[in-house]
């Protein structure tokens, strides 16, 4: 376990982890990056926590934040439950494979991959979003009853879902990364639905949130059995990230969000580069 943890009392260590996780959850939800992907590099780089234990704690926090957020989105009719259920076949199988690979791949390789995914997610969240053109009808989405409607300005807007097989394939990749790195991989899930299947952005992001909990649950069993989940670490990480992201979600409407995104994007890029550096030069 990390040097910082040996030097601190359990109370001090827990307080610092709650603070770091709270900031990660707050900024992660404010920017749409997700708390899990930020808390792992923060714990490993700032406190010297073992990468596998950080990933295990982050995976737990991901289940908490995504399920909490999804609860509201599902009731408000934004998430498409059928799209989520169908694509969860791909994400859960991907997650099982990814979690199994964590035992085979060396920590240095995981660290490099984590940094690369973090860099990409930061860039993805900073990009200006343009709504993708509506989907060309895919006969498969009619057969699977994937086409739906979501509320906008007081009325229901209908949409069709395209390229079902392509979206399914990208979702397998999202599940793989989730299991491999202990993250929600929300960015890649949104790409599969928004860019590939041409589902409206609001439906894509909320359905992604809906799916993250089940995807993470598919790898958490493997993490638990390997001993990657340390309750004394998972406790403050889960509570901190959860509290931070609830606060962050309330701030989302703020106009200063863009400036904050830029600052946060720069911080995340530095964390990502450090993760890659540590992977290349293991300490």
């Amino acid at each position, binding site marked *: 376990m990390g040097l910082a943890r040996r030097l601190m009392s359990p109370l001090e260590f827990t307080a610092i982890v709650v603070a770091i996780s709270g900031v990660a959850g707050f900024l992660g939800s404010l920017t749409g990056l997700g708390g899990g992907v930020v808390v792992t590099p923060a714990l490993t780089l700032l406190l010297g926590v073992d990468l596998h234990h950080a990933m295990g704690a982050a995976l737990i926090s991901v289940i908490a934040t995504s*399920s909490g957020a999804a609860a509201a989105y599902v009731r408000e009719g934004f998430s498409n439950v059928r799209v989520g*259920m169908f694509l*969860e076949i791909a994400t859960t199988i991907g997650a099982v494979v990814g979690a199994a690979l964590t035992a085979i791949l060396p920590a240095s390789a995981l660290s490099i991959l984590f940094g690369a995914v973090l860099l990409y997610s930061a860039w993805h969240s900073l990009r200006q979003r343009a709504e993708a053109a509506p989907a060309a009808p895919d006969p498969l989405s009619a057969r699977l009853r994937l086409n739906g409607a979501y509320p906008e300005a007081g009325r229901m807007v209908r949409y069709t879902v395209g390229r079902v097989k392509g979206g399914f394939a990208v979702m397998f990749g999202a599940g793989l990364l989730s299991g491999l790195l202990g993250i929600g991989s929300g960015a890649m899930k949104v790409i599969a639905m928004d860019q590939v299947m041409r589902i409206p952005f609001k439906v894509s992001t909320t359905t992604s949130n809906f799916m993250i909990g089940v995807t993470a649950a598919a*790898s958490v069993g493997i993490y638990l059995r390997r001993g990657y989940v340390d309750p004394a670490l998972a*406790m403050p990480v889960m*509570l901190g990230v959860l509290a931070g992201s609830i606060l962050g979600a309330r701030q989302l409407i703020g106009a200063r969000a863009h400036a904050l995104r830029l600052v946060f994007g720069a911080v995340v890029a530095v964390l990502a580069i450090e993760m890659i550096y540590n992977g290349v030069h293991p300490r």
Partner: protein
Amino acid sequence: MNDQRMDEIIGRLLRAGVSIAAAVVAAGGAWHLASPPPGNPHALTVIWAGLLILVATPVARVVFSLAAFLMERDRTYVVITSIVLVVLVYSMAFG
């Protein structure tokens, strides 16, 4: 059972699961930290219980969806949801 009703229940189920899990983990954590070092093993058991409630929450959502699709007689989604459930159970038991 219709889709709107299902969404409503899924929403409540997720919220309840996360709230209960967070409360149990927080209680276990407070007990753990209040105990003299190296902490109390029973307190860690309480934290574990909270973490397991949390992990069980999305699984319970899938189980509920399966029941709802059965009630709706939506055979395609009974099959789809069953596959997800089998993968989840496999990963927890043998993964």
